């Protein structure tokens, strides 16, 4: 199986990988487990490799790896985080970590008009794979959870029969705050909540607010909405 390419000729996450890449992936997960604990707490659902859309709050560089490390392997191997191309695609090293280490799919945050930036994500879901998205769009500078962008709504409309699983990540702000590269090894817990789906005819704003509330609820009042 060769490199697959999306519509514009860019390769998306490869499906099979050579052993050095698999080793890097394992080491990355091990490193994250040691450094941030990467515990999981399944509250509203159980780990399941079936197709799902995971969505989480976002406030540090380690969010993606923390969630991936918290997922059990059978789920992790079928789950692809969605990452911003303008950040993760800027150097060969970042690109390698994102695409090979994390099986991430890179998308454009500022797409050209007429194009569908979610196209590679939709393709993964069509193949029966799961994705992990951060609907805040960017890392928030505070503990507050920013309003959700509309990508998750469009995915929910396009795949109304797929479970959307809210995830709350705590402490990541303190582990690796924005603007710092020093990791403080505080334990992070990824809490998985009750899956939700879009209601027939549900308005975009209502749905986005409901999804955001599901993440905030998992914070146990630790920080304000």
């Amino acid at each position, binding site marked *: 199986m060769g490199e697959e390419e999306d519509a514009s000729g860019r390769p998306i996450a490869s499906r099979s990988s050579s052993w050095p890449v698999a080793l890097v992936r394992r080491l990355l997960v091990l490193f994250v487990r040691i450094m941030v604990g990467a515990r999981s707490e399944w509250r509203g659902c159980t780990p399941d490799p079936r197709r799902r859309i995971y969505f989480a709050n976002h406030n540090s560089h380690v969010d993606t790896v923390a969630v991936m490390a918290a997922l059990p392997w059978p789920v992790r191997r079928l789950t692809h985080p969605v990452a911003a191309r303008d950040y993760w695609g800027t150097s060969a090293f970042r690109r390698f970590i994102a695409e090979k280490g994390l099986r991430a799919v890179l998308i454009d945050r500022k797409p050209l008009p007429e194009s569908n930036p979610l196209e590679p994500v939709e393709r993964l879901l069509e193949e029966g794979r799961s994705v992990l998205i951060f609907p805040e769009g960017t890392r928030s500078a505070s503990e507050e959870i920013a309003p959700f962008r509309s990508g998750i709504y469009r995915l929910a409309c396009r795949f109304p029969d797929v479970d959307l699983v809210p995830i709350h990540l705590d402490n990541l702000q303190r582990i690796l705050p924005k603007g710092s590269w020093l990791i403080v*090894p505080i334990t992070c817990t990824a809490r998985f909540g009750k899956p939700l789906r879009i209601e027939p005819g549900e308005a975009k704003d209502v749905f986005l607010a409901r999804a955001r509330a599901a993440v905030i609820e998992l914070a146990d009042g630790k920080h304000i909405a």
Partner: protein
Amino acid sequence: MSSFFSIVLAAILGLLAVASAIGFILQRRATEPGSVATVHNLNARIRSWWIMVAIFGGAILLGDTAVVVLFAFLSFMALREFWTLTPSRRGDHLALFLSFFVVLPVHYVLLGTLWYGLFAIFIPVYAFLILPAVATLTGDVNEFLARTARVQWGLMLTVYSISHAPALLMLQTGTPSALLLVYLVIVVQLSDVFQYVWGKLLGKHRFSPNISPSKTLEGLFGGGASAILVGTLLYRLTPFSPLQAAAVSTVIVVAGFFGGFVLSAIKRDLNAKDWGYVIEGHGGVLDRLDSITFAAPLFFHIVRYWYTT
């Protein structure tokens, strides 16, 4: 190591085997949901004891360096548990990074290289002055005094205090110093175990429901007395006479009790039940080492002052 040590080791393994057998029988008998949960937790604790004895015993057999590395790792885990529950601000980030990756390793290197003079003052003098100094550079004055106290106490409890257990290896007393460490750990941990057992069997009068809901007067006195008795019987691991061993065990038990109690008070203040989750049935590393945090420095200084040659 002495032949007496082999007997002690055999006794510990025998005790664990008996505990596992009792746990197995209780598991078959328990029917009510409440007692099933208690027995489940008991068996988880016993399983974890096997692992803890294997790790600690293995490190002792491997030698001093292995013991120092093991305790450095335990301090790291404990400090991580402390900061996972304790709030910090962006302005503390550098101080926390330095706590984990500079102060902790340097302190244990000083221990490993037997540099006692600097070992004794590195954290309570230099780290205490340098870390707040670093924190001022971020310009965040919000709750500065309280934040500084948390940074310092985190290091004091999880690194400085705990490290006084392996620091016993520095001391020349005429008996192998690893046996002193074994002695300290046995008395402290048995005191906790006996308090738990006595409390479960006879406990009626809550000692301090606010701080530690499961501690009872019966558990406290029964457990304390049992541990002091064992500590007296084990005098041959130490340079103490039997009477001195009784007195020293009493100090260890009382200090250990306050260690557990103070760390419980901090947990309640932070609205947590356990410090962590890594030891099945026990909670976190700090839940298991809370008594050591107070007992180790006292025991270390008693031995250093009166028994070193």
